[in-house]
């Protein structure tokens, strides 16, 4: 048995099972990441309210949902809840589990990037008479987003891979599909390389979007590092 067999690799690459799994992975990732960002942001905002109760809730929420393995959450949603009378479909359990387990990570990222926006920005906005939600939406979020996007890229890749765990509740996505192929021919590396290639494609697309976003931001924010950014384009006369 050789280290690597190209024909197996290409056979897997366009296998219908894999393509179906890929599609499941993509929509599941995008949907649950979106939901997790919404939920995580709400949790982070609650955590910023300066009261014993809200801070306690925040820390408890983050600690609990981060510590609980996704596997446990999925098994719980799929197999323990019915015994308490709540019967979720497989897809519902997968979506809720993936959303819940991702939300605390998003919350921490949002919290950290909000705190990167200087206090003076809050004061200047308040002085104009803006309400907290307006300030958040138009002043603080746009500035925090610059800081949040790279770690959120991490989460995207993570979620892409985390979806593989839904196989424990009988859903088949990209990773499980490739794993299934290995059963018949024992070709682990070839099959998993196919999954890797698709992951790479998905992250490459994300990276392109992220680069475009960072380029846009560079209009108003110059990040001076070891080297200086010269020849900045301006609209000055």
């Amino acid at each position: 048995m050789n280290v690597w067999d190209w024909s197996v690799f290409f056979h897997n690459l366009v296998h219908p099972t894999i393509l179906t799994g890929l599609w499941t992975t993509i929509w599941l990732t995008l949907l649950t990441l979106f939901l997790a960002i919404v939920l995580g942001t709400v949790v982070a905002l609650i955590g910023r309210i300066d009261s014993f109760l809200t801070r306690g809730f925040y820390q408890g929420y983050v600690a609990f949902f981060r510590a609980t393995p996704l596997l446990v959450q999925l098994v719980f949603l799929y197999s323990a809840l019915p015994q308490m009378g709540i019967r979720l479909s497989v897809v519902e359990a997968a979506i809720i589990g993936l959303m819940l387990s991702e939300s605390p990570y998003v919350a921490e990222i949002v919290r950290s990037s909000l705190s990167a926006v200087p206090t003076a920005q809050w004061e200047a906005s308040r002085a104009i008479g803006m309400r907290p939600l307006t300030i958040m939406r138009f002043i603080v979020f746009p500035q925090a987003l610059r800081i949040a996007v790279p770690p959120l890229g991490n989460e995207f890749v993570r979620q892409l891979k985390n979806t593989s765990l839904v196989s424990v509740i009988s859903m088949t996505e990209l990773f499980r599909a490739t794993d299934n192929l290995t059963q018949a021919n024992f070709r682990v590396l070839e099959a998993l390389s196919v999954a890797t290639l698709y992951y790479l494609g998905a992250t490459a697309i994300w990276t392109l979007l992220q680069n475009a976003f960072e380029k846009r931001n560079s209009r108003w924010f110059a990040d001076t590092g070891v080297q200086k950014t010269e020849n900045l384009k301006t609209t000055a006369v």
Partner: protein
Amino acid sequence: MTMATDSPGAFLQLRDVVKAYGHYVALKGVSVSVEKGQAIALIGPSGSGKSTLLRCINTLETISSGTIMVGDEEIGANTTSSGRKKLSEKVLARQREEIGMVFQSFNLFPHMTALDNVTSGPRLVREQDAGKARKQGMELLARVGLADKAENFPRQLSGGQQQRVAIARALAMQPRIMLFDEPTSALDPETVQEVLNVIREVRDSGMTMLIATHEMDFARHASDRTIFMEAGQIVEQGASSKVLFDPETERCRQFLAGLTGVEATTH
């Protein structure tokens, strides 16, 4: 010496305002009353509490005790017989709309162009339509001499240019009271005058103003009354001509001597 000038017709009225940061008391019972349309200059050495006073009026700081009234409305809190209660952020926001503020350190929104900074209040607080806000914003930028920098981001502006945008941004809300925290400290004399002209125009239209300043010329010519603060207290207040030219307290005399002292002590 300091007197609680509790005139009943006052438009802005502070009574015994105390502000403590932890153990450090930055304002030690300040009482001020300002009539509608009056311009007040706040002078005093560094650290005397001028900025703190302005921030308290704009409710950016919650005062430790005392009351602040604008017209008939108490600002920042609700004092009843049963005690003081801080107001909700929503009510505070409405109160701040009426009180414009220009900061010592500009605090422009870095991710918005100069024009967007100026129109941010009308657009995001007043929900004015974009076209009208834009037109009004361009007028204001022209008034502070920056019409050609409308599309520049703050980081592409010099310090003085940034401060002028900040003034235009505050004026865009057409507030009832304007607070200036050293509005001209980063401006060159020529621009100072343009800006002072703008400020004077605004004042002539009936604006009530408080201006913390180190520019004695400005205090002298653009304010009706001057308040001299030191160590969190009002040491002397009165008509600007009186306080600045013939102060009653030794401390104020000494402070003002420092101003001309630049000239006096040099070769």
